[in-house]
C-alpha cells in the first residue's frame, strides 16, 4: 500500500512498539506532525527540544526500552544536542527524529537548515540522513536495532521535508535490518574464562566494581550469585546504584570521588578487581598512576573499545554481562574471605560519613536530612530522578536504592537541567511508579519550563528542590581549591513555591527539619505535582571528596563535628 514518508514514520514507530514520543513541531517536520493525528500515538509537547531528548532518555532509563524524541530542523535539532550527548555518555537507547529542509535545498544555508548529522556525528552511536520516502522504514528499523543492541546509545534520523511528503510502497517485511558490519554480540573465548577463574581462585582480597552494565543487561541476580558464591563484596558506581540492593550485606555502597571512604580504601587494598559493566571513569579512579596498584583486574564489558582504555586489565571478558556471568558462575571456585571482609568492616567503622544524620535538630536544615527523610518516607521505593551537583551526590549517599532503574541520573556528561524532563519521561514510562525529582536550585532553573509539560500532561511528579542559594558543587570546589572566591556561584532565586503555583502546581517552602516529613507526606498524598523548596544550609559540602586527579585514598573528610557557618553567629 502506498503511504507518504510522513505516514511511514508513524507506522514504523508503532511497529517498533512505540506508544509515546516527546517532541516539538516546526516547519521541516510539519508533514510528519500532520500525519501523526492518524495514528494512536501519544505526543508529549515539550517546552524546549532539550527536554524532549531528556524525556526520551528518562523513558529509556526507566524501562530499558528505546525512547523517542522528535524535533524540527535547525534550532530544533541543535537544541537536542545536549540531550543526545547525555544519552551517549550514559549508553541510553534513544532515537531522535528531526525534520530537515528539502533535499534540493541541502547545502544552501536554507532557512532553519543545520547539518545535524554532521553536528551529532561524535555524540551519536550512529546517525542517518534520509532523503527518500523509500528509506524511511528501513532506516527507522535499523536505528532502533542499533540504539538498543550491544552497548546502547542514541541514534539520530534526519528526514528531509520532501522525503516526508512523497509517497512510496510501504513494505515492513522488506525493511528488515541488514547490517553486515554491525556485530554487537561479542562472546569471550573459553581460554579467557580459564584465565579469569585462575585469578579468582588466587585472590585473597577480591572486590566487584559494579556499574550500569548490571542494569542494562539485567544481571542483578547473576552478580549477587557470584558475589555470594565467592564471598566477594561489591562496590557500586553512581550509575550502578540500584543494580544491587543497597540492603544486600555484600553491597558496600558507592565508590569514587564522593564514594564511601571505606569503599575507596577497599579498592586500593584489594588484590583482585572484578569490573562488571563499568568503564573506569576518572570520577571513580582518581589518579590512574596510583589506582589499585595491588590488584589484578578482570573486566567484563560489552564494548571492546572500553577494554584497557583507562586501566590496564589482566583479563577482559567482552560480552553481555549477564551471559558472561552465567557462563562464569559454574566455573568460579566457592571461596571465603573472612579476613578481607573483617578488614572492610573495620574500615567502615572508621567512617564519619553518616554523622550528619545523627546530629540533634539545631534548627539547621541540611540536604542530607531532606534526602534521608525522603528515603524513609517513601520506603526507598520511589523512582528518584536527580540533576547534577551536590544534591546528586547526597542523593546517592543517603537514598538507599534497592531496585534497578530506581535512580535516574546523568553520570557521564553531568548535565544540569536533566532531572525534571527525565522525570517526565520516567513517569510516562511507568505511570504507577512514585516519581520524585531531586534537583538543585541552579539546575532546576535550566529546564523548569517543563513544569508546563507536567501540567499539560497531568503528571503526578513531586519536585524536591535542594535550595542552598549557590551553584553548590562549584561553590564547594571554590571553597576547597580556590580559597573561597565564590565567582559567579551565588544565586538570586525566584520564589519557587509561587512559581509552581503560577504553573498550576502546588508549591511549598520548607526551612526547618521538623517540616520535612510532614511536607513529604502531604506531597505524596496530593494528586498532581508538588514543588517543594527545601531551603537548606547554604555552605554545606559533600564529603568525603577525592579531589579531581588525586589519589583515590586521598579523601577530604567531613570536619567533625560539623563546622558551623557564619549564619550561626
Amino acid at each position, binding site marked *: 500500500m502506498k503511504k507518504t514518508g510522513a505516514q511511514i514514520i508513524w507506522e514504523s514507530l508503532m511497529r517498533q512498539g512505540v506508544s509515546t514520543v516527546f517532541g516539538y513541531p516546526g516547519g521541516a517536520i510539519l508533514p510528519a506532525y500532520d500525519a501523526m493525528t492518524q495514528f494512536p500515538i501519544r505526543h508529549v509537547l515539550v517546552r524546549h527540544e532539550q527536554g524532549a531528548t531528556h524525556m526520551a532518555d528518562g523513558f529509556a532509563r526507566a524501562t530499558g526500552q528505546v525512547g523517542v524524541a522528535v524535533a524540527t530542523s535547525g534550532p530544533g535539532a541543535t537544541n537536542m544536542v545536549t540531550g543526545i550527548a547525555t544519552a551517549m555518555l550514559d549508553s541510553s537507547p534513544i532515537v531522535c527524529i528531526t525534520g530537515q529542509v528539502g533535499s534540493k535545498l541541502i547545502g544552501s544555508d536554507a532557512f532553519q537548515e543545520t547539518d545535524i*548529522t554532521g553536528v551529532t556525528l561524535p555524540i551519536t552511536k550512529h546517525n542517518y540522513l534520509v532523503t527518500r520516502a523509500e528509506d524511511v522504514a528501513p532506516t527507522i528499523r535499523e536505528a532502533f536495532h542499533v540504539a538498543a543492541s550491544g552497548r546502547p546509545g542514541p541514534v539520530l534520523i534526519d528526514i528531509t521535508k520532501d522525503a516526508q511528503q512523497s509517497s512510496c510502497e510501504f513494505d515492513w517485511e522488506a525493511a528488515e535490518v541488514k547490517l553486515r558490519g554491525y556485530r554487537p554480540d*561479542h562472546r569471550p*573465548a573459553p581460554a579467557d574464562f580459564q584465565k579469569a577463574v585462575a585469578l579468582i581462585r588466587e585472590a585473597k582480597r577480591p572486590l566487584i566494581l559494579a556499574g550500569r552494565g548490571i542494569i542494562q543487561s539485567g544481571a542483578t541476580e547473576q552478580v549477587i550469585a557470584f558475589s555470594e558464591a565467592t564471598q566477594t563484596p561489591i562496590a557500586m558506581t553512581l550509575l550502578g546504584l540500584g543494580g544491587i540492593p543497597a540492603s544486600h550485606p555484600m553491597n558496600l555502597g558507592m565508590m569514587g570521588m564522593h564514594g564511601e571512604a571505606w569503599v575507596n580504601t577497599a579498592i586500593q587494598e584489594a588484590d583482585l578487581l572484578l569490573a562488571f559493566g563499568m568503564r573506569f571513569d576518572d570520577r571513580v579512579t582518581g589518579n590512574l598512576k596510583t589506582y589499585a596498584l595491588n590488584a589484578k583486574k578482570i573486566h567484563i564489558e560489552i564494548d571492546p573499545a572500553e*577494554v*584497557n582504555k583507562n586501566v590496564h586489565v589482566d583479563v577482559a571478558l567482552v560480552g553481555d554481562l549477564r551471559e558472561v556471568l552465567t557462563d562464569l558462575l559454574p566455573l568460579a571456585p566457592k571461596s571465603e574471605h573472612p579476613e578481607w571482609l573483617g578488614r572492610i568492616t573495620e574500615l567502615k567503622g572508621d567512617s564519619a560519613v553518616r554523622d550528619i544524620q545523627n546530629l540533634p535538630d539545631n534548627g539547621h536544615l541540611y540536604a542530607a536530612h531532606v534526602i534521608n527523610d525522603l528515603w524513609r518516607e517513601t520506603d526507598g521505593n520511589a523512582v528518584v530522578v536527580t540533576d547534577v551537583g551536590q544534591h546528586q551526590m547526597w542523593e546517592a549517599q543517603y537514598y538507599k536504592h534497592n531496585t534497578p532503574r530506581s535512580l535516574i541520573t546523568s553520570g557521564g556528561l553531568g548535565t544540569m537541567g536533566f532531572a525534571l524532563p527525565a522525570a517526565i519521561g520516567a513517569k510516562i514510562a511507568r505511570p504507577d511508579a512514585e516519581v520524585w525529582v531531586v534537583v538543585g536550585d541552579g539546575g532546576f532553573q535550566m529546564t523548569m519550563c517543563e513544569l508546563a509539560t507536567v501540567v499539560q500532561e497531568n503528571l503526578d511528579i513531586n519536585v524536591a528542590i535542594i535550595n542552598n542559594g549557590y551553584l553548590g558543587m562549584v561553590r564547594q570546589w571554590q571553597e576547597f581549591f580556590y580559597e573561597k572566591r565564590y565567582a559567579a556561584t551565588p544565586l538570586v532565586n525566584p520564589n519557587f513555591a509561587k512559581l509552581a503555583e503560577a504553573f498550576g502546581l502546588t508549591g511549598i517552602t520548607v526551612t526547618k527539619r521538623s517540616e520535612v516529613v510532614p511536607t513529604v507526606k502531604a506531597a505524596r498524598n496530593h494528586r498532581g505535582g508538588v514543588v517543594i523548596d527545601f531551603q537548606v544550609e547554604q555552605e554545606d559540602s559533600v564529603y568525603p571528596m577525592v579531589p579531581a586527579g588525586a589519589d583515590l585514598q586521598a579523601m577530604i573528610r567531613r570536619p567533625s563535628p560539623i563546622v558551623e557557618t557564619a549564619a550561626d553567629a
Partner: protein
Amino acid sequence: MLHTLVVYVEDKPGVLNRVASLFRRRAFNIDSLTVGHTETAGVSRMTIVCDCDPANARRVEANIYKLVDVLRVDDITEHPSVERELAMIKVTATHETRAQIIQLADVFRARVIDVSEDSLIVEITGSGDKSEKLLDVLKPYGVLEVARTGRIAMARGPRLAERLADRFAGEETSEEQTGVSYSV
C-alpha cells in the same frame, strides 16, 4: 610506532568522515589514510597508518570496528605484507642538471613523467621509505612540489581474512567463536 590498519567499509556517503572524525575525537594520530574501491561492489578499502603504541593500536582498532558502517578491521603491522606508496615530485631542472636527475631517478626505478623547460616530474612507487630517500637526493636540485598518495598495504599469501583465522588454528578457539572479528 607506525601501525598499518586495513579497514573494509560500506561504500556510503559520509563513511570517510566518520572514520576521520573518530581519529580526531579520540586524539589518535593519522599518519596517512587512503581509500578506494575493492573487489566487491559496495565495499571500500581503507589503509590507515597511525602512529601509536600497541595498546593504543588495539583501541584504535576497537573504536573503528564500533562504527556501524565498518565491516572489518585488521591490524597487519605484524603480518608479512606489501606496502606501496606513489609519489610525484616536481624538481627544478636546468640544461645542466636534467641528465643527472634522470639518472638518479633511474637508480631509484622512478620514472620521469613530464619534462618542461625548467622542471621535471618524477613518479616513484614503493615503500614510503623509498620516496623519502629519493626526495632527499633530489632536494639539492630544488624540489618545487610533492604529491603523495599515502600508503596502501596488502598482506602476502591467501586472503587476509582466512589468513588471520589460520592463526587460531593451533588453539581451540576460532575467530568466529570468539566473535571478536576486529582483533587478532
